[in-house]
């Protein structure tokens, strides 16, 4: 099957067309980035924590098989069932089989990127099982039949009036009432009966501890705990890269996670599930789905260190102005740009170009993933494998020639300066010039740096 390439630029142009949405999106995410900076600055050993987190993850990933076996052994000893899934289909089949064995009709679920990656919702829906997303943002997206647009704040691209429309259409709220506490309260009331009647609950995992067989889930709404503590069956989907060796390491990661994500010292709930409660069942599904293959990619295995805080999304100027849905993939923003091509290089070959390579993503990453270097490396690979669209390729070939020759470069600068000054707007802001789209081209300077330098400092003193 040939998959078509996700056109990030085209998809973002639709997002950018709604002006108040872009402005709000940009401001809201930058606000999260600012809060992250403040929260980090309050912790004296912040940089030590980042270094430790990175080293612990690198150690674990380079000993992953042993730690997974240790985790499995301890989880089984605690009374949990451990399942292994090669890929998304196996994961979905395992989950379905557990639900079928319990005669489950309804599954309450807290947020999990992995289950989005596996497309579990449609799989179970086709088999007559109702999934209820319980996180507010995730529920908004589910009711609107859209995937989440952000790892941490799934409906961040929507304004309150959009949410009012979705809720009015789906859970019968007043379409003219856009009061945020009202909307949140309506979802609380709509979701509550599902916790009480669901036969099974499902969560993802932020961390899985080899030493004790514990899975750790960090939430703010308490929806994960409600999904686990009321129904009789708890299913946990865990990507194999979520393992960390010991309980003591949690101190490092929990201190980093919410500060990086939202700027709060910790999430409202940090829940440690070591064993099923008396009379209940706990199933842990360990999922590979391409991760073991990525572990063998010398340039890209570092992306497996990711703890899904979303800080790289919040800081990225391209993400903030294009919205998560424009990436056409489960993982968006800088982390998505380096992870998505490992799933399907052709489909996601445009994504590594959705970056200015400013490196801000790498400098906010709590586990020090070299995100911008990996983005650059993907561009090289995509070029080598001939996955570049022809226009971009020609433009880059020309740019390469011009930038390699001082004489050519200088005459190009002169021509551009003259052009920007004297050309009519229609020539600059037309469909063929990508740099004139959605932005004002800066005013041309009167004197270039080289001209100024030759005039003022050029003579030998």
């Amino acid at each position, binding site marked *: 099957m040939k998959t078509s390439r996700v056109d990030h630029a085209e998809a973002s142009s639709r997002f950018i067309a709604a002006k108040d949405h872009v402005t709000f999106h940009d401001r809201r995410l930058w606000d999260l980035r600012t809060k992250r900076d403040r929260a980090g600055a309050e912790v004296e050993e912040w940089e030590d924590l980042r270094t430790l987190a990175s080293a612990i993850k690198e150690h674990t990933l*380079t000993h992953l098989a042993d730690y997974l076996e240790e985790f499995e052994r301890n989880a089984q000893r605690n009374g949990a069932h451990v399942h292994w899934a090669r890929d998304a289909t196996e994961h979905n089949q395992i989950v379905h089989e557990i639900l079928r064995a319990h005669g489950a009709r309804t599954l309450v679920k807290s947020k999990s990127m992995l289950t989005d990656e596996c497309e579990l919702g449609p799989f179970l829906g086709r088999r007559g099982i109702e999934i209820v997303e319980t996180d*507010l943002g995730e529920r908004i997206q589910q009711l609107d039949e859209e995937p989440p647009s952000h790892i941490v704040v799934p409906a961040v691209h929507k304004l309150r009036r959009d949410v009012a429309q979705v809720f009015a259409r789906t859970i019968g709220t007043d379409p003219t009432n856009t009061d945020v506490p009202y909307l949140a309260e309506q979802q609380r009331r709509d979701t509550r009966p599902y916790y009480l009647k669901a036969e099974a609950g499902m969560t993802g995992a932020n961390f899985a501890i080899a030493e004790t067989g514990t899975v750790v889930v960090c939430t703010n709404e308490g*929806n994960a705990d*409600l999904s686990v503590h009321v129904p009789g069956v708890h299913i946990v989907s865990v990507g194999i890269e979520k393992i960390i060796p010991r309980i003591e390491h949690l101190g490092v990661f929990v201190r980093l996670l919410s500060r990086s994500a939202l700027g709060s010292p*910790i999430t*409202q709930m940090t829940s*440690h599930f070591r064993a099923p409660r008396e009379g209940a069942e706990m199933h842990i599904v360990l999922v*590979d789905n391409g991760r073991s293959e990525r572990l063998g990619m010398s340039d890209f295995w570092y992306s497996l260190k990711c703890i899904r805080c979303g800080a790289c999304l919040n800081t990225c100027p391209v993400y903030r102005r294009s919205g998560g849905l424009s990436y056409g993939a489960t993982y968006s923003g800088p982390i998505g740009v380096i992870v998505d091509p490992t799933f399907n290089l052709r489909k996601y070959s445009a994504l590594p170009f959705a970056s200015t390579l400013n490196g801000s993503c790498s400098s906010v990453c709590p586990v020090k993933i070299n995100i911008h270097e990996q983005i650059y490396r993907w561009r090289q690979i995509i070029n080598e494998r001939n996955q570049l669209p022809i226009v971009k390729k020609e433009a880059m070939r020309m740019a390469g020639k011009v930038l390699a020759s001082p004489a050519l470069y200088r005459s190009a600068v002169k021509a551009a300066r003259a052009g920007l000054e004297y050309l009519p707007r229609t020539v600059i802001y037309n469909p063929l010039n990508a740099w004139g789209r959605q932005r004002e081209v800066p005013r041309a300077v009167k004197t270039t740096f080289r001209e100024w330098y030759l005039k003022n400092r050029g003579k030998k003193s």
Partner: protein
Amino acid sequence: MKGPASVTAAAADTRAEVLARIRANQPVPMPLPDMPVFERGSGAALEAFAANLARMGGVFADADVTGDLGAFIARTYPDAVVVCSAVSEVDGTRRVEDVRAPSQLDDVDVGVVRALLGVAETGSVLLTEAQLKVNALGFLSQHLLVLLDPAAIVPDLHHAYRHPAFFTSRYAVFLTGPSATADIEGVLVHGAQGVRSLTVVARA
């Protein structure tokens, strides 16, 4: 249709294959760093705890509640009908020990529990199934009242994770203020799905 034996065999195949693929692809081994001890200045743990709890939307009740907790509850939650208690200091209208199924907690207005410890750095309280008795008490209740011994406040999460409960309890949770969401336009709303308010009372 596959029988149970072949299903088990297929599962064993998957497990072996995933582990083999990981072993084949694991990069050059990197060492596990030692965990440093971060020095903390002594004192003021209770003040720091209270300040951080407030920042997370929780309430630290003043020292004037040294007396009858029943009166405090009546004053703080005037509309409460069902008070479900898991502590000996408060009778409540329902004992958590009498609750058979978690869903029976649906009508609880106020849940009362005692924390295992508090964390000054974050304003968190630690609870396990030993304190909650029925875990859902901490989430289905509309409001939660937590008793905390001021002597049980540790400076930070590194200290908290040394507690043996993480190695023995089935479930352990750091609760930090009430349930909260900012999923719509970043507007903070307390009581998203779990408790609408969380109040901590210092009591040895």
